[in-house]
């Protein structure tokens, strides 16, 4: 059963290391062992079922289908019940120590096995396999191992303590004494090739003569007649060249024709253009001339009109002012601006004096007459009054 446990632990290790092939191997080894050693019991049936299930483990938890397809591992059941496992040799994958979960489709990076850290180096005689355990589990494991050791120490019967003055000594009791030392005897063996000597030149390999010597000679005219053969080739060459050159010449001629046509057109155009310009110029001149004439005519008309107006004005004013002078003279004469001085003098000085004198005289007479009139009036008035008085007296007296 200890072997079984060892095998199981190996398989667990392998499984942990995702090396399902070896895991399977170990597992099925255990199956074989148990089948060998045990009768058909529940345990074997369980184990067999496990192994059967293992065959269908999703082998590619972190593998790709390609690998299983291209490098299939065959688990066969021998007729004896022996488990056989075969797979194509695969180089170990390079994986980091602390793995990332499920890298996808990594290209097979085959590492050099010489530099693979998982490969054990050196003498394997005295090395222990590295137990892969979780740190927590490791702690528990440590604790459990310590506990177990303690228990074992307690359980183990020890030899009694040495008497006073004596000392227990460990001694080998086997037949042959064995040197117990940790030093491992090792011998170093070296091997070295000799230095390479210069290889002498290989002799020219001349095989031995064998067979029959045969010679042949090609006479002139036997293979082909050059002149005949070359004719079609030459025809093609010359024809193609001439065709190409003819094409080029035709193109050039066409271009020259086009240019000539262009030039002719340009000439015609220039002539026409000159004619157009001449006509334009002529037209311009004519137009200018016409405008000039029209302007001149307008000027002339205007002048004429002005002159006519002037003449009319002159005539009218002459006519208007014709009678001015006589009338002026007449009115002046009428107003007495032209006078005979003697007459004027007589009129101005003499006659008024005369008149004034006459007036005085007359006034005197008038005054005299007035006076007289007044006297008469007063006399008459008095007489009237007298008469009136007389009358009244008379009236009053006569009753």
């Amino acid at each position, binding site marked *: 059963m200890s072997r079984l446990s060892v095998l199981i632990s190996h398989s667990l290790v392998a499984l942990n290391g995702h090396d399902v092939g070896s895991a399977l191997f170990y597992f099925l080894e255990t199956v074989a062992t148990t089948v060998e050693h045990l009768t058909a019991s529940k345990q074997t049936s369980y184990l067999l079922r496990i192994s059967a299930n293992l065959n269908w483990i999703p082998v590619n938890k972190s593998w790709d289908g390609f690998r299983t397809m291209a490098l299939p591992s065959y688990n066969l059941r021998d007729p004896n019940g022996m488990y056989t496992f075969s797979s194509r040799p695969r180089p170990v994958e390079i994986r980091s120590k602390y793995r990332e979960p499920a890298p996808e489709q990594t290209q097979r990076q085959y590492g050099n096995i010489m530099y693979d850290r998982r490969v054990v180096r050196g003498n394997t005689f005295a090395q222990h396999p590295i137990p892969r355990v979780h740190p927590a589990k490791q702690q528990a494991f440590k604790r459990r191992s310590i506990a177990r050791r303690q228990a074992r120490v307690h359980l183990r019967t020890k030899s009694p303590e040495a008497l006073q003055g004596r000392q227990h000594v460990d001694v080998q009791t086997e037949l042959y004494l064995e040197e117990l030392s940790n030093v491992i005897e090792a011998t170093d063996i070296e091997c070295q090739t000799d230095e390479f000597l210069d290889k002498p030149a290989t002799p020219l390999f001349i095989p031995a003569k064998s067979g029959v010597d045969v010679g042949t000679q090609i006479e002139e005219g036997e293979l082909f007649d050059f002149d005949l053969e070359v004719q079609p080739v030459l025809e093609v060459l010359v024809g193609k060249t001439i065709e190409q050159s003819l094409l080029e010449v035709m193109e050039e001629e066409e271009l020259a024709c086009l240019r000539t046509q262009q030039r002719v057109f340009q000439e015609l155009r*220039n002539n026409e253009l000159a004619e157009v*310009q001449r006509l334009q110029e002529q037209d311009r001149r004519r137009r200018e001339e016409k405008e000039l004439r029209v302007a001149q005519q307008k000027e002339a008309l205007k002048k004429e009109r002005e002159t006519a107006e002037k003449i009319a004005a002159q005539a009218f004013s002459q006519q208007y002012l014709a009678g001015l002078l006589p009338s002026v003279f007449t009115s002046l004469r009428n107003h007495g601006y032209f006078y005979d001085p003697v007459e004027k003098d007589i009129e101005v000085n003499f006659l008024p004096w005369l008149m004034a004198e006459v007036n005085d005289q007359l006034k005197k007479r008038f005054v005299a007459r007035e006076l007289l009139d007044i006297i008469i009036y007063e006399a008459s008035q008095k007489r009237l009054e007298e008469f009136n008085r007389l009358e009244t007296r008379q009236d009053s007296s006569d009753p």
Partner: protein
Amino acid sequence: MAAAVQDPNRAAVAFGRQAVPQLFEQLQQRDASCSLRVLTSLCDLVHEPERLYQIVTGGFIAQLQDLLKDEDPSVRTKTCELLHLLTSHSIGRLALLSSSLLPPLSVLLDDSSSSCRRNVHLVLNGLAQMPAGAQALLMLVPKLMLKLRQMEEEQEEEEVLLLSTLSSCSRLDPLPALASDGVPVLGHTLSHCSPNICREATEVLMALSVPEDGKRQVCEEQVLPVLMDLLQNGDLQVQTNAAGVIMNTVIITTGPSSCLVLLR
């Protein structure tokens, strides 16, 4: 079969239909050393009309825009040569017009490499032969006039091509050239000794003297004496063109009077 002899200056060309697309794919990779070789192969292929059609319809012309701005002058020169070969066909010209390659080309007019400039002038000349091309190039006329003014003695080829382009454009519409003082500048170039330049310059003058303004300027700028001298020039074309200019100029009234003065 003997292996095809590889010209070290040319890239390998694929067979049949794949030739052009594959070469352009190689151009896409922007590898400096092989760009020149690929361009040389392309220039060889483009002589064939079918390939040219393939280039135009495949829309590869836009890729050439980056090459025009390349640092290597030989690459730029080769690209311009390729464009020049494109202008030999009408679809090439049309494609060139419809693509946006004219601004980069006009930038290359001031390029440092003379062969590049020459090729650019070839392209513009080819474009200007077509009325639509001349129409598109009318915007470039002021810049071309500027280049003409700055033209030095050794650049005869460029000058000839430039003048030819200007004449094609001016035939379509002489006003832009007149506006950039075309007549005085051309008067200076007329005194050049080379017959090609004289011929082209007189052609431009003939186109410029069509509008009235041009005729007046020709009389004012004292170009007529030079033209009279050119009538005795050895080259027939020069004489013809000079006569053409005079023919245009004498239509206005000051023309004949000044001519008669000169003849005396």
